[in-house]
């Protein structure tokens, strides 16, 4: 399952933790039968994990990025910001491939995100009507998401094989060109990566839209109908405003998931042709965990993270502005 997709809920919806409406009364009750240590005992197991594998690594990762950190060499000299400077120095070992991989990530996000935002919305609008079999269709469209990227990629590489794949076979039967190099040549590789990703994750976004659609009060549609709004006007003036928080979530999560694309290109195109579809994550993971050039890899991962955070901020600002 695209881990990154499931891991980005909105924090904005939660109430501030410190606020307690019935203050004093609650305070007294909370400590009945409990020592002041109790809350920390409840927190401890999770905090140990959180500190070891989230908090410490963030700091540690930045520290690594300030060193020439080769896993295989004993010396790890401190080099300051040199790893970052190199990313901006044309002709350095890392700058060329890194920006090329950022370009691949950018292209993939640009091609896939609009489809992944719009197509599932259409599917959700159809599924939102009451008709026999709707839960069946919802389950069918969601099913590929349950399979995970490895199965999906291995399966589609077979289906899209230029010579013996089912897709070219049926294209040929229909009298269309049947030798399309889906997995080995530009621009087909992009069609493949985007198409497979839409097939894989469409259901995820559709399910989120569906839940959002079901939260829009029926009365708003009735009122709009009474005012003489047609279906399109109801969609524009009731559905879209009602879906705004869900849209923000879907757009943000989809962009982040697309920007983190790895498995599809690792297994279907092997980053090729050349390194045209080698994404940023792919290059960072190869640099850090295959070539063990961890200082550079860490610096690159912070650069990518910076981009992702900026995109999220722009997103939030855009939707906030539209709300006014």
């Amino acid at each position, binding site marked *: *399952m695209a*881990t990154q997709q*499931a891991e980005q*809920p909105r*924090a904005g919806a*939660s109430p501030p*933790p410190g606020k307690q409406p019935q203050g004093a009364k609650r305070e007294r*009750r*909370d400590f009945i039968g*409990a020592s002041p240590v*109790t*809350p*920390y005992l*409840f*927190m401890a*197991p*999770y905090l140990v*994990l959180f500190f070891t*594998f*989230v908090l*410490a*690594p*963030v700091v540690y990762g930045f520290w690594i990025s300030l060193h020439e950190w080769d896993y295989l060499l004993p010396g790890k000299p401190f080099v300051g910001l040199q790893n970052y400077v190199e990313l901006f120095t044309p002709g350095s070992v890392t700058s060329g491939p890194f920006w090329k991989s950022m370009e691949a990530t950018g292209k993939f996000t640009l091609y896939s995100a609009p489809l992944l935002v719009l197509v599932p919305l259409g*599917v959700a609008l159809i599924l939102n009507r*009451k*008709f*026999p079999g709707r839960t069946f*269709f919802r*389950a069918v*469209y*969601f*099913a*590929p998401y*349950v*399979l*995970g990227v*490895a*199965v999906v990629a*291995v399966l589609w590489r077979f*289906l899209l094989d230029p*010579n013996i794949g*089912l897709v070219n*076979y049926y294209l040929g039967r229909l009298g269309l060109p049947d030798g399309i190099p889906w997995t080995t040549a530009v621009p087909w590789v992009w069609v493949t990566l985007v198409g497979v990703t839409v*097939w894989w994750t469409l259901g995820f976004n559709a*399910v*989120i839209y569906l839940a959002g659609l079901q939260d829009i009060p029926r009365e708003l549609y009735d009122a709009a109908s009474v005012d003489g709004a047609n279906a399109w006007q109801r969609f524009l003036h009731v559905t879209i405003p009602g879906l705004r928080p869900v849209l923000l979530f879907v757009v943000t*999560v989809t962009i*982040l998931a697309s920007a*983190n694309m790895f*498995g599809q290109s690792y*297994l279907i195109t092997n980053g090729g042709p050349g390194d045209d579809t080698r994404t940023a*994550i792919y290059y960072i*993971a190869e640099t*850090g965990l295959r070539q063990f050039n*961890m200082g550079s*890899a860490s610096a690159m*991962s*912070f650069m990518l993270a910076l981009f*992702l*955070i900026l995109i999220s901020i722009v997103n939030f600002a855009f939707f906030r502005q539209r709300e006014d």
Partner: protein
Amino acid sequence: MAQGTVGREKPDARRIVKISLSYGALILLTVVFVAPIVWMFLTSFKTNPESTRFPLSWIPREFSTEGYRPIFRAGSDAPVLRYFFNSMIAASAHAALVVVTAAPAAYALARMHFRGKGLMFAVVISTLFIPHVILLTPNYLIVDSLGWLDTLLALIVPGAAGALGVFLLRQFFVSLPRELEEAAVLDGANRFQIFIRVILPLSKAPLATLAVLSFLTNWNDFLWPVFVTFSPASMTLPPGLATLQNAYNTNYPIIMAGGVVASVPVIILFVIAQRYVIEGVSRSGLKG
């Protein structure tokens, strides 16, 4: 079928056309979604020559288990059965670890008062927005220094530090009525007893949702296991499929058989626990 459609209005011609078109689109889409998965199943039962022989046929002319035999054989260079058990152990242990650590923490954050609570909550939640790529290299080194590289522990533990479980469960605990806990306090129960005997039994649905989602996430995880496991003894199915694809290149029945082994458990889990999976996914988008 069109007759069963909720029809407060009379079914006129336009309505029937509209309904037929909708069903047509839905069924076409169903074919697009189901056909590839069916093709994977059927190919896994073909012989190697038949899997690529033109004209391609859906139903195997000669039903064969050739695709499964090499991957189930002991001492195979693609021990998919081993990957399968590794995946089972890792995903189950991971789901258990997530629930066992997230539930008490979420309860403390939802119901107790203590110094540093606001700060802890803010820090934990803010990490939901940190791109995970920055954890890749340092966590590799941390897992290495714990001696966990190329072991199942590397796949079970680090992922359980994510904040999503704490976040989802806290939202649920906050919504529970306080009266239940008050009654238990009057009966002389302490915090621990209240948590075990009152709160957890009321939280079966969200706990199941979290467990199922954690299991699926871990079962399908790809990037991390590709880099932290090297030997068949610790490899799970997703990286295993990658090695299978390399080792058997064009022997599609074998590769598809691997895909089937990786898919069947999650498809069964999805069919049984569909409500929890879809609830969990939509909840992560809405109430947050």
